[in-house]
């Protein structure tokens, strides 16, 4: 986002674009990456409800469809909490 002059900003420090933090990608904080095995996944969505970074993609049918690496910080909670070991962590290779 380009830095604006004080004359252009909305008054009162108000942010008028809800949820625009999505533009800020936290994926590059990651040192480990979750790898999802769709074969093992039973779509219990525990990974979804325990993910701090809104990085578990769930479709309208309530099925887990993957991991949003734009935001995933690699905490590893999903892998730890998966009852079927359908997610494991790998060291991030950059």
């Amino acid at each position, binding site marked *: 986002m380009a830095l604006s002059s004080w004359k252009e900003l909305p008054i009162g420090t108000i942010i008028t674009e*809800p949820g625009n933090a999505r533009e800020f990608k936290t994926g590059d904080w990651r040192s480990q990456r979750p790898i999802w095995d769709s074969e093992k996944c039973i779509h219990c969505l525990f990974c979804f409800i325990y993910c*701090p970074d809104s990085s578990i993609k769930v479709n309208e049918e309530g099925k887990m469809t993957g991991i949003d690496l734009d935001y995933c910080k690699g905490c590893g909670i999903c892998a730890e909490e998966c009852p079927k070991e359908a997610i494991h962590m790998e060291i991030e290779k950059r």
Partner: protein
Amino acid sequence: MPSLKELSKNADLFTGGHRACSGCAGPIVIKQVLSVAGPQTIASLSTGCMEVVSTIYPYTAWNIPYIHVAFETAASALSGVEAAYQVLRRKGKVKGKWNLIAFSGDGGTYDIGFQGLSGAVERGHDFLYVCYNNEAYMNTGIQRSSATPRGAHTTTSPAGTVIPGKKQFHKNLVEVIAAHGAPYVAQAIPSNWADFTRKVRKALDTEGPTVIDILAPCPLGWRYPSNKTIEVARLAVECKFWPLYEVENGKYKLNYRPRKEVPVEEWLRLQGRFAHLFTPENEHIIKEIQEGVDRRWESLLEKCG
């Protein structure tokens, strides 16, 4: 109880791109609350971790209306929002039903914001107050609060050679708020999302002030690996350090009874903040903590009848 599939529909009310630490329980708490509350919700935050990481100008992770005033004002500012809601609804300027929810850490709840919370609860505003309790002032670098447990090392209750960590047991917020006569008060844990989301639903359906104190493990301050957040939370309940219960109109109810005896030592051992207790000269503190936990558990059982 809603299913996780249903809860996933509100997944975007608190977005990714916030800057909480890896493995932080705070965003998990917010997500679980909002998944139940839905989009017709206004959030009032106190200054603290969740406020700082979620609204760094010009970005906001909030997809619902949000207000932050100061450290000690989550409840008092929300009192004003609620007053405006009442009057503007009467005047037909605001339509529909809105949930009003405060989010504050233990600093903003147990300590600096305690008076504001007490006043707001006494006045009977219709809102839910959620304390994401990480048991210290994490936002400023892990200083002790009145929610910090006995024996824990923090930067202002350091494990020194003479004083081994925090001397006092933590304050019991649920008891204090229950004593106000609030219609619904509960203690919860993010690892038990089913219990927590049910409590949030119940609180939102209750007229008047409701308070949920939810333990929110902090990998940085509690010193455990970031993938263990949910496990550390779960064990806090299993060892009875953090019982899941609710007080509805003065009536106590235990929501979960651990199946086997887990000594508190097992929970302490997972966390670096208690590492100094595992030496011969400090072992007695672990014993004292266990006694404290047992005492509180027995007292709770009595109240639950």
